[in-house]
């Protein structure tokens, strides 16, 4: 009997091409889009379209502009000719979104080595608050270009700090330093020795997929698991409204077999759905699915069961399809927003991160993060696995009780 319910749901889904695409195609596509956006944003591949205005028109400003233009994080440069109104033109380029940020080399007599307030700085970075990340990237690029193109300016600035704040130079020392720096400015400077202040070390293994990709695989999987489970569970109400429920509940399995048959189908559908997403993540982005298949399968089975149980419980508690559909979609969106399926949990305030533990999205995401980023095994994943399995069992039991009560 349960197998018959399973077959009915499978055939129904197979012949409903829209629902089929929604269940298995759309999640993969949405995941790829998310992964491309966020792996670029978090993985250091973000590049900026820049507008550049050199109002100073000196040898130094030319060197700085050339070094800045050559930076890898600057994707394209729109050069604005210095003239009256060119500063306004620069602002408009940023406002209109034609460039992500702009750099103006001011003609304000402030040396590139000067110490002073920001409003007197020789370089101005113009940015749109909607793309403030671009300002940070350009600031870093200007800093690096300044050190590469004008090493003398860098030393003059350090010397000025020493002179003013630590040990005042004598006139002789100042003269000797300036002569040395002028000689250095007139000849091509040899590269400065590298500064060994820090070394960047990633928590990911070399060649591993960006962390954001494995995160979004789980995040998108949970969002679509909940949606697909809800849509599948809605067939309970369809069958109730058209009278099939009364006919089918006369079978020896009663409503229990109906709920269990649908539950089994939703679990398998969910498992395949998540498998599709992670297969894409492995094939396209290098997420190490084959290396973690056993814990991944356990977590995916628990997540699919949890979604199916919750969806059946929710639908059984609703009176009509319209009510279940409307409230269900609101619930899925809220769970996904709080649980981390839309925005990474680490970007959330602490209170929201705590609230996330009341959602299945967080349980599954924490488990997937444990597998793919922290290399945890099944024993380490006890808490999220227990939460998901428990919710699945409670959902299934509750749905049976509610449906039986509704059938009286």
């Amino acid at each position, binding site marked *: *009997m349960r*197998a*018959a*319910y399973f*077959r*009915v749901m499978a*055939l*129904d889904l197979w*012949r*409903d091409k829209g629902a089929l695409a929604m269940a298995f195609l759309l999640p993969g596509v949405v995941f790829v889009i998310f992964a491309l956006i966020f792996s670029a944003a978090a993985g250091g591949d973000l590049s900026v379209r820049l507008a550049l205005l050199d109002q100073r028109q000196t040898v130094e400003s030319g060197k700085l502009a050339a070094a800045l233009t050559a930076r890898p994080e600057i994707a394209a440069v729109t050069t604005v000719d210095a003239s009256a109104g060119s500063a306004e033109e620069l602002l408009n380029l940023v406002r209109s979104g034609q460039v992500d940020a702009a750099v103006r080399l001011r003609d304000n007599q402030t040396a590139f080595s000067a110490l002073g307030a920001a409003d007197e700085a020789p370089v101005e970075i113009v940015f749109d608050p909607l793309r403030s990340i671009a300002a940070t990237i350009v600031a870093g690029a200007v800093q690096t270009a300044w050190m590469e193109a004008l090493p003398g300016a860098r030393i003059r600035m350090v010397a000025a700090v020493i002179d003013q704040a630590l040990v005042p130079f004598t006139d002789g020392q100042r003269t000797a330093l300036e002569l040395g720096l002028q000689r250095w400015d007139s000849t091509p400077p040899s590269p400065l020795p590298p500064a060994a202040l820090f070394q960047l070390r990633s928590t990911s293994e070399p060649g591993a997929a960006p962390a954001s990709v494995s995160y979004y695989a789980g995040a998108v999987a949970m969002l679509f698991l909940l949606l697909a489970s809800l849509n599948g569970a809605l067939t309970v109400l369809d069958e109730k409204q*058209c*009278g*099939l429920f*009364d*006919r*089918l*509940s*006369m*079978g*020896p*399995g*009663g409503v229990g*077999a*109906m709920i269990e048959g649908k539950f089994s189908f939703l679990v398998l559908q969910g498992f395949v759905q998540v498998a599709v997403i992670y297969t894409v993540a492995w094939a396209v982005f290098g997420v190490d699915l084959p290396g973690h298949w056993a814990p991944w399968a356990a977590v995916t089975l628990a997540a699919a069961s949890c979604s199916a149980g919750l969806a059946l419980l929710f639908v059984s508690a609703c009176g009509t399809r319209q009510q279940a559909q409307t409230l269900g979609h609101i619930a899925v969106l809220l769970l996904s927003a709080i649980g981390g399926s839309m925005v990474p949990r680490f970007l959330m305030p602490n209170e929201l991160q705590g609230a996330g533990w009341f959602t299945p999205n967080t349980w599954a995401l924490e488990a997937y993060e444990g597998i793919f980023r922290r290399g945890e095994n099944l024993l380490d994943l006890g808490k999220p696995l227990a939460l998901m399995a428990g919710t699945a069992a409670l959902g299934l039991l509750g749905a049976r009780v509610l449906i039986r009560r509704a*059938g*009286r």
Partner: protein
Amino acid sequence: MLSLADVHYRYGAHVALQGVSLELAEGQIMALLGPNGAGKSTLVSLITGSRRPLSGQISLNGQRPWRNHAVRRHIGWVPQTITLYPRLTVEENLRNISRILGVRRRDVSGRVDEVLPLVGLEDKRRKLAGALSGGQQRLLNVALGLVHHPTLLVLDEPTAGVDSAARRQLKRILRNLQARGLAILLTTHELEDADELADQLAILVGGRIRAAGPTGRVIAGFFQDKREVNITLAARAAGDSRLAACQHMLRSSGLAAVGSGHQWTGLIDNRQRQVDHLVHALLAFDALIREVRVRDPSLDALMNVVSRPGAAA
């Protein structure tokens, strides 16, 4: 086979059924009639075991159907709405629903092959149920109620919204099933169908059985020596003194005008040959009379009488 004894049911304060008693044997067709809100659906849900009576006994072959799947599997339920999976073929519907209704896996193919010719859908077995015509879907709806070999078939308004050809086919199917010994209970508002098909009647009004038993005997017993008289007058100008006299005579005989006053109908007690006297009197108005019909009271007349508020059983 099916027996109901003094069955009561209510929804909160609303009394739905009061002391309903019925008997239905193998090979009988019973029409359960009654106006909307009479309690037919509640009674059917009690018989099919979806609800439990508050008091009284319902038994099918000696066992109570409520939550008793051993009994319920002997009931074929054909709801008024077409309840099938539109994206499954006719055969897939039958196969899967028969499994859900408890048919053993090895018997499924045989049941499908058996039931399809019964409803005339052999050549549609690979067609999607949603692509069938309305009449064919209704036939499949009946087939789904038969596929598990029930001994009692319960049909709710089986001919509602069905064209005359499909209706004739459905009636043939029901007679065929009756001949095979199936007990059939059908609720309907189509009195012509009930009159034609049913050999047992049960008229439910306000939760009580107003009349029950073999169709002919129920009607005859209810009306006893009454005859149903229908008279059509010829169209004459209003104000004609002979027409007024004729209408007065009809009214005083117990007939009532229908519509514009040219159609008169009523039940006349014939114990003292009143019908003969009426026909005789009508001869005096020969030129005004177009048609006189006298017949035994119909099911329609019975329903009109028992459904009237305050009508006695």
